């Protein structure tokens, strides 16, 4: 029995052959592999490199940028199910999985719990808009319930400071993750009631669904509902929605948004007030201008009226003066006429005078007395 001379392959040839074996096998198309994430690298390029391992083996994985952008955030130790194609990376002689999607394992259970609790609390009316408290327009004191060392408090303080810095912020240091989380959040919510705060921000930075799980616990939801002070929730990233968000009086998508929700109200109100003030000033000015014009008008009419009165009186006086001049008896005397008086009275009829009467003759200048001899 002769054995055929074994064929000698080049490295490229054998690699290409294996590549075909792998990639052409329908059983390896769209496979799901479960395991734990390790050696995780988010590369600058946007590609994500990691391994999925179990106790005995590990599988190199690459998730290209386009898929990574749509994927949940991974971290070391995550239990995942990856879906993709098996392939060979020839330059290194590695086989690897080109991952198209990652599902976090265990999510199913948690999601089920989430849905059940949500429905239960909804039935109880804990999410009803009628029991939502209004966020005050001008909060002076804000209690922030979050970790003193997390990204959330940093984001909140930065936002508040940037927007409006005259707020009093009371940080209630709280564990917002892990087994102690729920208890700590409840204790902080109770403690916040006596701080005199106008509003409470309940916040936590982004994380996995497990990290945020405290905010999906029934005891936390009930503590939020019991708060006498309005609660704004700002938990995780925009896409994260927790039970706490539904119970809170206002849901903000992130800690930053929660801070903005407290302050832009104020900024908006101030802007509105400024606008009112401007309008008020404007209308006041208009009012004054208008009244001034009316006053000018009155003033003119008053002047005309009083001047007219003076003119009228002057005219009346002129008429009287002219009449009086016409009654001047001495006028005729100036022309050479004389007047005859008897007992001081002007005489118009000679028959009233008898011989022997004493009469007086008035000239323009001087008078003479005489005795009548004949009539």
């Amino acid at each position, binding site marked *: 029995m002769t054995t055929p001379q074994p064929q000698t392959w080049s490295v490229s040839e054998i690699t290409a052959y294996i590549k075909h074996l792998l990639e052409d096998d329908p059983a390896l198309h769209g496979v799901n592999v479960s395991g734990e994430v390790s050696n995780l690298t988010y590369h600058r390029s946007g590609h994500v490199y990691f391994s999925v391992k179990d106790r005995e083996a590990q599988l190199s994985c690459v998730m290209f940028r386009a898929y990574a952008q749509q994927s949940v955030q991974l971290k070391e130790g995550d239990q995942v199910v990856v879906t993709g194609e098996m392939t060979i990376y020839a330059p290194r002689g590695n086989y690897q999985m080109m991952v198209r999607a990652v599902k976090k394992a265990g999510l199913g259970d948690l999601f089920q719990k989430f849905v059940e609790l949500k429905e239960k609390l909804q039935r109880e009316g804990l999410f009803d808009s009628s029991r939502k408290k209004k966020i005050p327009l001008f909060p002076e004191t804000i209690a922030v319930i979050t970790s003193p060392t997390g990204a959330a408090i940093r984001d909140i303080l930065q936002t508040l400071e940037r927007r409006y810095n005259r707020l009093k912020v009371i940080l209630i240091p709280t564990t917002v993750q892990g087994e102690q989380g729920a208890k700590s959040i409840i204790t902080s919510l109770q403690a916040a009631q006596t701080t005199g705060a106008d509003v409470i921000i309940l916040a936590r930075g982004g994380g996995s669904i497990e990290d945020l799980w405290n905010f999906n616990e029934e005891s936390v939801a009930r503590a939020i509902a019991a708060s006498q002070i309005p609660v704004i929730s700002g938990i995780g990233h925009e896409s994260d929605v927790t039970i706490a968000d539904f119970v809170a009086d206002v849901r903000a998508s992130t800690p930053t948004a929660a801070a903005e929700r407290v302050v832009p109200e104020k900024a908006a109100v101030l802007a509105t007030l400024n606008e009112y003030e401007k309008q008020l000033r404007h209308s006041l000015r208009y009012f004054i201008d208008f009244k001034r014009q009316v006053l000018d008008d009155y003033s003119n009419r008053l002047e005309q009226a009083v001047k007219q009165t*003076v003119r009228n009186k*002057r005219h009346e*006086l002129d008429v009287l003066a002219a*009449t*009086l001049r016409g009654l001047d*008896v*001495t006028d005729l005397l100036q022309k050479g006429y004389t007047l005859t008086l008897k007992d001081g009275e002007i005489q118009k009829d000679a028959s009233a005078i008898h011989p022997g009467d004493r009469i007086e003759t008035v000239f323009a200048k001087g008078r003479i007395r005489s005795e009548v001899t004949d009539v």
Partner: protein
Amino acid sequence: MEEKFSLEDKLAEIRALVEKMQKGISDFDKQVELFKKGNILIEECRQYLNVAEMQIEKLMDES
């Protein structure tokens, strides 16, 4: 105590005086006396109106 000048009173006085003279007064001296008095009253009123006019102008300039 000096009485306040009243234009209307003075004008009424002049009117009455003129009417009285128009009806005719036989007493010559009385007539002359009334004529003089009328002229004095007219002059007083003219002065008053001059002052009033000046005051009006001054007030209008000030406002």
